[in-house]
């Protein structure tokens, strides 16, 4: 008996020991948010992940932000902006913003941030976003001038897509340090980062703007959707995103949480390797790409698998983006024509393709919609073999390195910039990291579209561009996503149209 008791005692002591690090925060002052996959660094310009954008909004500030109610871009760190001429913009900055290390935010920080991003040697992923900016000049402590490479219509919009980092940190601490230690001017500070497990943010009590209600934000990494939903219902998490539409009733019936949906800028597609980045493949032939589009009954998938939560699109340009052509009708399923076309293209016995897939992350119901698509493709002779990569970092890296072909899942959030250019360039321009399509005609249109300030002309250019994309069947087009969020009844919050979750506007709900 004694032996057993001592074993038990030792076990209890060990157990007790680990329970020491009890969290300082309580339930009432913490809001809990879930990610499906963790970021690889805390340096937003060095990451293309949506999670990085969201985290960036919490710890850093931007020169301008989108007002969710009016959907217009409004001043934030910049108090005003003016186009001095076609290629020069002047911005005036706030005087009361401070970085978390105490240094004041000035024009020099703006210059340092952009210089770092634009420097091709740094190889930061955000570079392509701001490539039209040629140089930045400090006019005085709180004014800065941007010179652009020709007229740049998206200049103001893109101000919402670059966080302001500290010149002192960039110069004194360097790139490596910045990967793990974010120093921003934002409403929260990073307190602790347990890689791949959770982030803990604490409120910045010296923030120049409106202070968040919750003192702490806990961001938990929960890879399984089923676990996320279980945690939401059992009170372990307050906000989750990308809820599969067929689980919405579970959340809504639970009495503990509710769902909130919103059309978002993100468009889903299957990229087909027309540019042969991963090597020769059948999709370099336009007819085969058209076959893929003709084979799939996309409308049925939206209706039955997504329960209607998707907006059919003819090309990857989203209905909410400037330049969208509502007159262009998408492909209709036509199995006979598809089979004939495939035979015409030289594949009477069909083709075998490798299909790369990954985690849902931002696309709810991805696994199920993939299975439906795969089944439809098989009906016309396109046989797929699924190749699943279970973490978003490696998946995105494979895409970036040109290894993801001939067919893979892709979606694009436009960096929350509501303009056709935000997808035409990064995802469809020849030579860009995330684009497996190469069409000189399209490139000419894209370049023209971002070089004129005449909105009417731009709209015409984009109509032409979409026609090309459609007729050339650039990719297998799917739909504009409707984001589905799960929100605990403990808090007030609604689905954000720009897909940027802001824990700093979440308030507790009065019982």
């Amino acid at each position: 008996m004694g032996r057993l008791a001592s074993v038990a005692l030792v076990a209890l002591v060990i157990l007790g020991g680990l329970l020491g690090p009890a969290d300082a925060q309580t339930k009432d002052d913490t809001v809990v948010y879930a990610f499906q996959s963790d970021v690889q660094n805390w340096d937003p310009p060095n990451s293309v992940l949506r999670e990085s954008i969201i985290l960036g909004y919490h710890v850093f500030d931007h020169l301008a932000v989108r007002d969710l109610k009016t959907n217009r871009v409004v001043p934030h760190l910049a108090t005003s902006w003016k186009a001095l001429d076609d290629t020069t913009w002047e911005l005036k900055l706030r005087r009361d913003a401070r970085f978390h290390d105490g240094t004041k935010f000035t024009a020099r920080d703006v210059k340092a941030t952009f210089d770092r991003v634009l420097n091709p040697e740094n190889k930061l992923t955000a570079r392509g976003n701001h490539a039209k900016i040629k140089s930045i000049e400090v006019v005085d402590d709180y004014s800065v001038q941007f010179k652009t490479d020709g007229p740049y219509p998206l200049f103001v919009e893109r101000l919402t897509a670059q966080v302001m980092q500290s010149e002192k940190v960039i110069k004194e601490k360097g790139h490596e340090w910045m990967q793990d230690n974010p120093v921003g001017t934002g409403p929260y500070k990073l307190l602790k980062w347990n890689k791949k497990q959770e982030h803990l943010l604490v409120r910045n009590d010296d923030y120049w703007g409106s202070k968040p209600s919750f003192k702490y934000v806990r961001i938990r990494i929960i890879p399984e959707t089923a676990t996320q939903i279980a945690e939401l219902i059992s009170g372990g998490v307050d906000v989750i995103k990308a809820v599969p539409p067929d689980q919405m009733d579970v959340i809504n019936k639970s009495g503990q949480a509710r769902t909130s949906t919103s059309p978002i800028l993100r468009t889903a597609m299957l990229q087909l390797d027309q540019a042969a980045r991963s090597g020769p493949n059948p999709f370099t032939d336009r007819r085969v790409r058209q076959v893929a589009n003709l084979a799939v009954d996309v409308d049925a998938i939206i209706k039955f698998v997504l329960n209607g939560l998707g907006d059919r699109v003819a090309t990857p340009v989203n209905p909410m983006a400037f330049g969208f052509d509502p007159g262009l009708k998408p492909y209709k399923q036509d199995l006979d024509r598809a089979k004939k076309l495939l035979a015409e293209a030289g594949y009477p016995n069909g083709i075998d393709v490798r299909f790369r897939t990954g985690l849902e992350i931002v696309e709810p119901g991805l696994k199920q919609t993939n299975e439906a698509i795969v089944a439809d493709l098989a009906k016309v002779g396109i046989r797929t073999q699924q190749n699943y990569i279970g973490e978003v970092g490696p998946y995105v890296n494979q895409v970036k390195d040109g290894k993801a072909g001939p067919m893979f899942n892709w979606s694009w959030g436009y960096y929350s910039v509501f303009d056709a250019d935000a997808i035409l360039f990064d995802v469809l321009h020849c030579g860009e990291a995330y684009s497996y399509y190469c069409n000189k005609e399209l490139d000419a249109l894209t370049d023209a579209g971002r070089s004129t300030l005449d909105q009417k002309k731009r709209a015409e250019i984009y109509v032409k561009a979409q026609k090309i994309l459609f007729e050339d069947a650039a990719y297998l087009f799917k739909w504009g996503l409707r984001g589905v969020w799960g929100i605990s009844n403990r808090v007030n919050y609604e689905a954000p149209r720009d897909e940027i979750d802001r824990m700093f506007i979440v308030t507790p709900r009065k019982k």
Partner: protein
Amino acid sequence: MRRYLFRQLVQLAVVVVGISILAFAILHVLGDPVLLLLPQNAGKEEFERYRKLLGLDQPLYVQYWKFSSGALQGDFGKSWYADTPAFRLVLERMPPTIYLTLAGLLVALLIALPLGILAALKRHSFVDTLCTAVAVAGQAMPIFWLGIMLIIIFAVQFRALPASGYGTWKHFLMPAFTLGAFLAPITMRLVRSGVIEVMNMEYIKTARAKGVGERMVVAKHAFRNACIPVITVLGLQFGQLLGGAIVTETVFAWPGVATLTVESIRNQDFPVVQCAVVLLALIIVAVNFIVDMIVGFIDPRIRVGA
């Protein structure tokens, strides 16, 4: 006693070397180590450099020497995903796994000991049959299913326990119970047969003949000596226990070595996989060794026998 210790140490060393060879073989012989150990997007020069570093043109035993000498110093390469040394990553995630394993062991003992003894004492009665039936059913239950069911019942339905994660004693309850339920059936049967065997021994009969009360017989003699086979087998079962912990961790999103290993496999982050496998195996070896020592100390017959 010293001879026994020495013999065990030799065996330990041999097994450790064997494990390192096995781990080396899996990575370096079954796959192309350069492809496996470098991140996907490393450039061509990186590949060439690593090839030279690993000495892939050199005979296997040289490569093995490089691997094992590095391993002894704790250098298993860098996790390309997190850009930190693999050894540190695995070590960081070790405590939750160890705690879970111990908690599971505790639960298993709490279930198996009383039931096993009861079944042995009331042999062939209804109670015995019931316990045996429960044990057989328990062995057939896939524990990942059990874990999911527990989450649905206690976290979602009753909202009494957290659905996943780590941090408070409440987070321990379901995973520990799941793991304990995994090990309990076989432990119970071992306890039962161990107690039965001991009960039939001469000195017990002698004690009974002397008129010592039944309870005393059980408590003093039977139990203490039944412990030996139980401890031995539990020690040997530590490997099984760890295996069960691997399954349990994945269901409860427990931040331990098992979830790290599975993630790393999905990530194709092989330095971490290799390091985790080696370290876990070493822990098992260490535990087996300690158990052998303890048992050898208690029961001289084991020391002297084969």
